[in-house]
């Protein structure tokens, strides 16, 4: 029997970048395949080609052994291939049923047959584990469940292959579990799944087979579950071993750099938060999604004004009403959502990197373009950013490389306090280790780092100590020698003693 979908010898060239070079991949019926590789390896491009978003320059696609040509997403949908977008393609203002059937509403004489639509939508929603009222507005659902709605929508088009690009990067641990349960169930009913992940733990947990890309070429395959091991995957991706769990020695902490007293965020005004950070310290904030971690960082950075409390940087009290106040006091924030908060997508790599340091580097308001170029020339190799040049618009970079540009932009400011919100979202293992090294090195020069992460590995390997948040308050702090997955999870769940939530 031919595989459900097969790509043969796919090539794709972008100006200055050979994204894919003679890449082949196949997915069988009811098979769950993981696609992994370093940032910029060509993974997203390959998925887009399979889903009809982009067309290949060379090579061929086969569905059920028959050659096909997709001229758009609709063609791919017709062949049973559905792409779940990372930026969810849903309409906030519609209800669940309206979203599931968007553009395909059952209708008569131009009128939507609401009752029928709701009945059918409820069925599709149940298939992805959502026993919800289809008349509920989508905006009432957290992001992880919205993603399930998107999957229900794909299933309702009778998709036989679901394609997902880093679906778990913005999900909580529990949402990820739900998603995986749904995927397993789909597999059992004969639906295939092809997905990209930088989280090798997930790959090991879920994949039947792993396909590895490196620099736009096939770099190997792990054909069966038993062979899926971290070290094997990393070696295939990076071409060398990466010590991903290396714990770096703590630096001796210096003076207190950030002092927060009774800070009340608009999201959880009833829970004042206090903490202090010394120069050279790297403190991780763990907790479940919705525990108020991002709100804490954005309030510290003046994005959402505090309801009360005091903040001092290097002993000097600061009045935080806008990000400008925070920046002036020596703080930097790498925000959670790089596309909306971190980058000007249409602008060049160089211009994005210099955006916050433009003013301090300017002469009487004139941009110092030489300093700007120097910054880019220094940062691109330092963070191993893959781009054809510093004048490339950031939107044409791969996701992980975009994240590195955001990091570069804030590091350029040489802050005293670096706030990081999910700093390595979408970044590959090798680059992760490099970024950890960089952050660690900067801490050695006296920088205080406060980072939020949903990845346990990241907390365990990067943090000198961890604060665990639960429902808006700091449920507890763990010094390095107390730091373990179990303790973090217990505190995150509200300290009830349950092992995980």
């Amino acid at each position, binding site marked *: 029997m031919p595989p459900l979908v097969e790509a043969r010898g796919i090539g794709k060239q972008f100006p200055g970048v050979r994204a894919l070079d003679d890449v082949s991949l196949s997915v069988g019926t009811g098979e769950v395949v993981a696609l992994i590789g370093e940032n910029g390896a060509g993974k997203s*491009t390959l998925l887009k080609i399979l889903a009809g978003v982009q*067309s290949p320059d060379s090579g061929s696609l086969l569905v059920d052994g028959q050659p096909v040509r997709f001229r758009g997403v609709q063609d791919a949908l017709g062949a049973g291939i559905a792409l779940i977008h990372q930026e969810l393609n849903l309409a906030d203002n519609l209800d669940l049923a309206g979203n599931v059937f968007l553009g395909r509403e059952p209708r008569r004489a131009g009128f939507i047959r609401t009752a029928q639509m709701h009945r059918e939508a409820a069925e599709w929603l149940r298939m992805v584990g959502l026993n919800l009222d289809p008349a509920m507005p989508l905006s009432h659902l957290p992001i992880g469940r919205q993603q399930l709605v998107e999957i229900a929508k794909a299933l309702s088009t009778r998709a036989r292959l679901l394609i997902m690009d880093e679906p778990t990067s913005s999900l909580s641990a529990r949402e990820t579990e739900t998603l995986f349960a749904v995927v397993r169930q789909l597999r059992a009913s004969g639906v295939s799944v092809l997905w990209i992940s930088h989280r090798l733990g997930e790959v090991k947990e879920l994949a039947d087979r792993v396909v590895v890309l490196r620099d736009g070429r096939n770099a190997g395959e792990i054909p069966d579950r038993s062979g899926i091991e971290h070290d094997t995957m990393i070696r295939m991706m990076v071409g060398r071993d990466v010590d991903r769990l290396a714990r770096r020695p703590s630096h001796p902490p210096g003076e207190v750099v950030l002092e927060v007293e009774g800070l009340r965020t608009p999201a959880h005004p009833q829970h004042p938060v206090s903490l202090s950070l010394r120069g050279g310290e790297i403190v991780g904030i763990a907790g479940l999604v919705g525990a108020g971690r991002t709100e804490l960082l954005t309030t510290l950075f003046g994005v959402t004004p505090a309801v009360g409390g005091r903040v001092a940087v290097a002993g000097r009290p600061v009045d935080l009403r806008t990000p400008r106040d925070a920046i002036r006091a020596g703080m930097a924030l790498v925000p959670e959502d790089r596309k909306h908060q971190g980058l000007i997508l249409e602008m060049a790599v160089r211009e994005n990197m210099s955006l916050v340091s433009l003013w301090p580097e300017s002469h009487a308001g004139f941009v110092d373009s030489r300093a700007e170029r120097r910054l880019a020339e220094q940062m691109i190799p330092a963070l191993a950013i893959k781009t054809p040049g510093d004048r490339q618009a950031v939107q044409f970079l791969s996701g992980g490389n975009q994240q590195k540009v955001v990091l570069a932009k804030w590091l350029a400011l040489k802050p005293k306090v670096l706030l990081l919100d999910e700093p390595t979202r979408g970044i590959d293992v090798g680059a992760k280790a490099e970024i950890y090294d960089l952050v660690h090195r900067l801490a050695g020069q006296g920088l205080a780092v406060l980072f939020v992460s949903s990845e346990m590995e990241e907390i365990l390997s990067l943090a000198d100590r961890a604060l665990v948040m639960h429902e808006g308050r700091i449920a507890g702090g763990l010094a390095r020698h107390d730091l373990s997955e179990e303790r973090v999870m217990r505190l995150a769940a509200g300290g009830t003693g349950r092992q995980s939530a």
Partner: protein
Amino acid sequence: MKGLALAATQVVRSAVSPKILGIIGLLAAVCLYTALASPNFLKVGNLENVVHRTALFGILSIGVAFVIITGGIDLSIGSVVCLVGVLLPWLLVDHGWSVPMAVAFVLGLGAVIGLVHGLLVTRLGLQPFVVTLCGLLIYRGVARGITQDQSQGFGTGYKGLRALATERFPIFGEGGFELPATTLVFLVIAVAAAIFLNRTVWGRYLLALGRNEQAAQYSGINTGRMKLLAYVMSSTLAAIGGMLFVLDINAAQPSDFGNFYELYAIAAAVLGGCSLRGGEGSILGLLVGSALMVVISNMINLVHPRYQNVEFAIIGGVILAGVIADELVRRAARRRPGSGS
């Protein structure tokens, strides 16, 4: 001098952009057609007039471009032109104000109008379209009220002041092409605007916030103040334009002076490469866009004088064709390297 050199390199660099090449081509085509169809087009007097009017409309479109770059719009330009156009002679002739006083007053008034627009947009969060639409109605109403709908002019006086708009410099000797003084005013403004937009931190901030306001805020940019600045620039340049228009024509009829000028300015900006979604714009493009508007109108006058009453339709059609062509080119370009993520 250094500034001029910088601006020159900027102009050259932005001229390479394919977006502007298309519109330059369109301008060349319209010029060629008009020159072939009418012997009067290339006459020195007509060319002077085309250059002169391009300069005047160019000033207005530079102003509105700043607002468009922030993702806003300014519909009040024509009414500001009218208000300033009738106030200046009214203050000077009817009320005997001194020239510096009157000029300072009308330009200051323009700045204040822009400030009010900007504050309403940034502080109250009103929509730019609504705010400036109300401005469009209010300023014209005020202009007509103040003057009792009487046409205003300078009569035979104020020759010195009027020279600002009427003077011609014979750069090619006697009888040759004479450069209108308004061109110089325009050039000064255009060079300053190009330097501001492309070389200063604030210009970069404007472009950045036009693309992604949230990311700009997270980067510590005072987006409110930058937008305010854009509205002030727009109305101030409209006031300068209004002053030059009335100095030139010497008669301002409150009920129709400056009518529809905001649309000419916006159209020129859009043709010149400004996206109404914000974040894009080049000064050279504005110049070409303004010239195109003026040349089309000139073409109708010279070649098809009988069709003058459909002038708007022709202008509208050309703009639409330009925008469609631009979009098609962009799509073709996007299809090739594929859509990004």
